[in-house]
């Protein structure tokens, strides 16, 4: 029995309960009150039953098509969109969507993606990027069949043959593409993530939305980078108090904005400024003393200054030809970012008191490193021996004390200061001392 036959022959109750009719949701056991307007308007409250003698009762308008047939109706031309296929997918439907968009067999894109994945990994990146950027096909969208009229086997054979011939070119191109795409993909991901944190707009939407959010996030990253560099430079140049006041003012503005008008865009720059200045302060970086490499070779104890400073660079103090009298001789070194190098004769005992924010301390054969590195090594010496009291403060970098400049390039492991050495061990380099009381933390 067809639906029309049911509609014409069945009783009224069966017609109202036909499953093909669009259901009207009403509370069970309750009749809609005629006085209560419904969503369909006041006329919907009246029973739609026609009079039995009305000849139009058997000429009801055709029922609306069932939902599964609705998309088949012509709805006018729609713009062709690139969507990930739901019906023709192996992983994410990217190649199926591309095949439908370009009206070619998706196997072509699959072979190309695999080939690019094998020759440098660009295929993986491209696929992941497409997986993120190309929106998924909606549930109700119709899947178009793949291109017809061509032999799939023949197509695969031709494509494989072309790939075999072009393999060397693809290898180079894939490596180059991967070298470009890896940083690009990382940058886009970082931009989307930053913009997600700043604005709350997650990585959803179409490709245009993703690109816009990535661009805005990259812009925020660049802005924060500039702020970080500026804040670090200002703090290292002696403007730490100013930077601290700016950070506090930013915090007050954000706090006041919470009650008046939120200024969330200020949060990330303020935190960036605070952390960059804080890192400079924690490392103890001081740009006093200038920038560049400096080397000093004092001829006598009179030429040897008590203090040497350098902001950024390599500071080298060469004492091999310096006439140093017996007794204690202070040497203060301040380096912001870089390395402080001291070259001493074999007959000089070296006392080390060093603080390195981030880096390493190497004194002859012993070394240590890490963050917040502190070394205190105070060996005794006989009265007729020169004892050099090295007091070094390095922000980011290293302090190196050697007998031979060639040892600066030595990259092998030394004996750690944390070994609790009470006596100088053979070959520790500080042989002019009587003993050693090294203390270090790092």
């Amino acid at each position, binding site marked *: 029995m067809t639906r029309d036959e049911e509609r014409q022959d069945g009783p009224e109750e069966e017609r109202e309960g036909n499953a093909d009719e669009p259901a009207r949701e009403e509370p069970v056991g309750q009749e809609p009150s005629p006085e209560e307007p419904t969503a369909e308007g006041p006329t919907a409250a009246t029973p739609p039953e026609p009079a039995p003698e009305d000849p139009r009762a058997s000429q009801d308008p055709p029922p609306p098509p069932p939902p599964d047939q609705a998309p088949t109706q012509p709805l006018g031309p729609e713009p062709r969109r690139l969507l990930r296929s739901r019906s023709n997918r192996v992983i994410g439907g990217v190649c199926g969507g591309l095949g439908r968009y370009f009206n070619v067999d998706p196997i072509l894109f699959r072979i190309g993606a695999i080939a690019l994945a094998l020759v440098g990994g660009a295929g993986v990146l491209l696929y992941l990027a497409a997986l993120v950027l190309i929106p998924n096909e909606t549930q109700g969208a119709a899947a178009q069949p793949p291109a017809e009229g061509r032999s799939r086997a023949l197509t695969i054979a031709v494509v494989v043959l072309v790939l075999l011939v072009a393999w060397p070119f693809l290898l180079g191109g894939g490596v180059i593409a991967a070298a470009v795409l890896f940083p690009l993909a990382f940058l886009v991901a970082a931009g989307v993530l930053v913009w997600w944190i700043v604005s709350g707009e997650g990585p959803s939407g179409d490709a245009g939305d993703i690109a816009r959010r990535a661009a805005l996030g990259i812009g925020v990253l660049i802005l924060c980078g500039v702020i970080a560099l500026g804040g670090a430079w200002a703090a290292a140049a002696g403007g730490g108090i100013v930077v601290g*006041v700016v*950070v506090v003012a930013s915090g007050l503005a954000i706090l006041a904005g919470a009650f008046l008008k939120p200024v969330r865009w200020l949060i990330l720059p303020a935190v960036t400024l605070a952390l960059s200045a804080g890192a400079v302060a924690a490392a103890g970086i001081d740009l006093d003393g200038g920038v560049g490499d400096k080397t000093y070779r004092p001829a006598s104890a009179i030429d040897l200054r008590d203090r040497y400073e350098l902001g950024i660079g390599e500071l080298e103090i060469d004492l091999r030809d310096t006439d140093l009298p017996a007794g204690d001789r202070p040497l203060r070194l301040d380096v912001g970012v870089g390395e402080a190098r001291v070259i001493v004769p074999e007959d000089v005992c070296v006392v080390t008191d060093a603080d390195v924010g981030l880096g390493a301390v190497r004194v002859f054969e012993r070394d240590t490193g890490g963050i917040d590195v502190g070394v205190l090594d105070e060996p005794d010496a006989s009265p007729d021996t020169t004892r050099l009291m090295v007091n070094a403060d390095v922000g980011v970098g290293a302090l190196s004390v050697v007998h031979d400049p060639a040892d600066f390039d030595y990259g092998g492991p030394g004996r750690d200061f944390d070994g609790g050495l009470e006596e100088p061990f053979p070959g520790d380099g500080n042989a002019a001392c009587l003993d050693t009381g090294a203390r270090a933390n790092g």
Partner: protein
Amino acid sequence: MPVRTDRPDVPSIVAGIAVLALGAVLLLDETGVIELSFGLLAPVACAAAGAILLASGLARRT
């Protein structure tokens, strides 16, 4: 009962307090009250960033 729309922005409150704390640490270091090191800065920074992200995430959920 009407819903109040002038409630303070909780993530901004948390972020403001966190930034204020970071600024206070900077000023205390500059004035010599404390000696800032990476061992002190790292937990302070992580706590500030974590509080901001947590407040933002919870506000987004509600």
